[in-house]
């Protein structure tokens, strides 16, 4: 109860305006189209991932639009012309501490509905531990806080990038309504709902 009181006063001082929050259901969906938003700071490989995703779904009949941004909230003047954002990908580069802090501040501007299967974190450069500034533990903690899965992948080579794009695309298709499964149900199947002490790998996607 003390925590609840703290939370109330924290809400008062937070500077997130309600109209700045990105919501999924404000606009109508369009048949056979999906829009993905990639959020990440500079030099995290957003454009390359966007191109890989568009190439990957070129022949699936899904018209994919990928939008990238370095920070949220998105500018207000485009609010009317922007289509409905079906999926959000937050990109964190472990060699770049700034990318982690931009993602941390960006997740505050996203409605809770996105974290029920319509968002994920992508972690790059997780293999080269010698250059890392951000600890994997912190990313894992962030992903736990928002209960959203995270994918580790590489952005350097083409094969790694297409693989990562394929994984994200499978999640986007569910979120766009192509598979007739609710994204929340997909999200549930990715985790174990038992409450024991010993836990093994959760996200086996």
């Amino acid at each position, binding site marked *: *109860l*003390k*925590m*609840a009181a703290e*939370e109330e006063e*924290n*809400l008062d001082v*937070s500077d*997130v305006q*309600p109209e700045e*929050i990105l919501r999924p259901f404000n606009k109508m969906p369009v048949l056979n189209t999906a829009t993905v938003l990639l959020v990440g*700071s500079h*030099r995290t490989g957003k454009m390359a991932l966007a191109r890989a995703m568009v190439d990957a779904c070129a022949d699936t009949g899904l018209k994919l639009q990928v939008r990238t941004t370095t920070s949220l909230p998105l500018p207000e003047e485009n609010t009317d012309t922007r289509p409905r954002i079906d999926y959000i990908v937050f990109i964190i580069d472990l*060699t*770049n*501490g*700034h*990318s982690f*802090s931009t993602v*941390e*501040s960006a*997740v*505050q*501007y*996203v*409605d*809770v509905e996105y*974290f*029920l299967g319509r968002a994920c974190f992508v972690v790059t450069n997780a293999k080269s531990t*010698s*250059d*890392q*500034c951000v*600890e*994997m*533990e*912190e990313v*894992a*903690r*962030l992903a*736990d*806080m*928002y*209960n959203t899965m995270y994918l580790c992948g590489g952005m350097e080579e083409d094969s790694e990038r297409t693989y990562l794009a394929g994984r994200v695309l499978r999640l986007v298709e569910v979120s766009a309504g192509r598979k007739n499964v609710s994204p*929340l149900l997909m999200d*549930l199947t990715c*985790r174990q*709902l038992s*409450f*024991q*002490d010993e*836990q*093994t*790998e*959760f996200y086996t996607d």
Partner: protein
Amino acid sequence: MPEDIDTPDHDASTPGTTVSPDSPGMDTTTSDTYRNTRFAAVPRATPCEEGRTSLSASRLNRTFQRSYLQRRYTPYRTPRIRKVVSSTADRTNTSEVTEPADYRGLARCSLHVYHVTPLYRCRWDRAGLKQLSDGLTLHLAQLGTVGDSSMYRTAVAVKENADDRFAVEIIVKRKDTTGRAGSLYSVLCNMEGEETPPEHFTLLPLLLMKGPVTLQNAVVRWLEQRFDCRVCTMFLQPCNLLWAMALGLIRADTHKAKQQTLDLHFDVPLKDVGLSKMSLEIPIKHARSLFTSIAQDGENDIQLEELCLFRQVMETHMFEYFRIHVDTMKLSLVATPVLYADKNGRLKILSADHVPAVLRMMTSFALERSPITMCSLGSK
């Protein structure tokens, strides 16, 4: 995370069921056990990045912090509190009249730091030490050129500390030159940590070496062969370097006349443009006053959050005044008037008074990297 005591109002995992207010309550007891790392006896409040809540997702966070979610990832758990004792406390601790351990050999020279897995089957009595030094001499004889049967003289000694801790000193001297040129001085020690290793093993996780690199490699290989252990260079991560900086700031003597600075070197990811390193120099007085204003006064334990706050303050300052995003770069070297520490495992302690404290910190870093602590933490 300690925020799970709140009543949930959005239970997202099981959308069909109704919200039950007693589900987070039973997890608070288990979550407290994960707070008890080796160093902290008191559970801490929220770390700095969770202080800001979001309008939309904060309620979701608060409902969901089950303790089991916290333990699945990397085996490297950074402790939240470290004891960074100031130099005044050092003097009161050594109330014994016994001769303090001779740390002069380790001060004012550049040391390579390694972390060592537990050593198997070593006898630390006189006969055992004699055997060890003979073995090392034989091993080093293979290093010498043909015709040169043995140019090295080795000595392996055990030094006891006031706290009943012992350290192993390995000295390798060249026979043809006198003095310290070309000779190796290394110390294997364990300054902290109460883990008892399994039977027949000795836990001496920190190895410091000073001397030529060929000799160092040879001694390392001999150690690995003789004691069936692994000796690895301790690459200091940016968070470890920040702890070293905190130690340096706390223990710095600000009354010295000459201008002292805190140097932080960063690796810049712009090698193709031609810029590979950036160094930041801050006068010690300012850095120290900033640090004392952040750290809670009167306590000798520095919290991880305070260190993060210090780092964030530096980053915002650099951004506001110079438009440099320091957080995109990786901290590679920290230089304080007390010690220099580098990401490649090189260390230099500038005065013998600070050696015990620095060694304690390095031992805690080494213990974090050792598999014994990882296993023990995993089984808790």
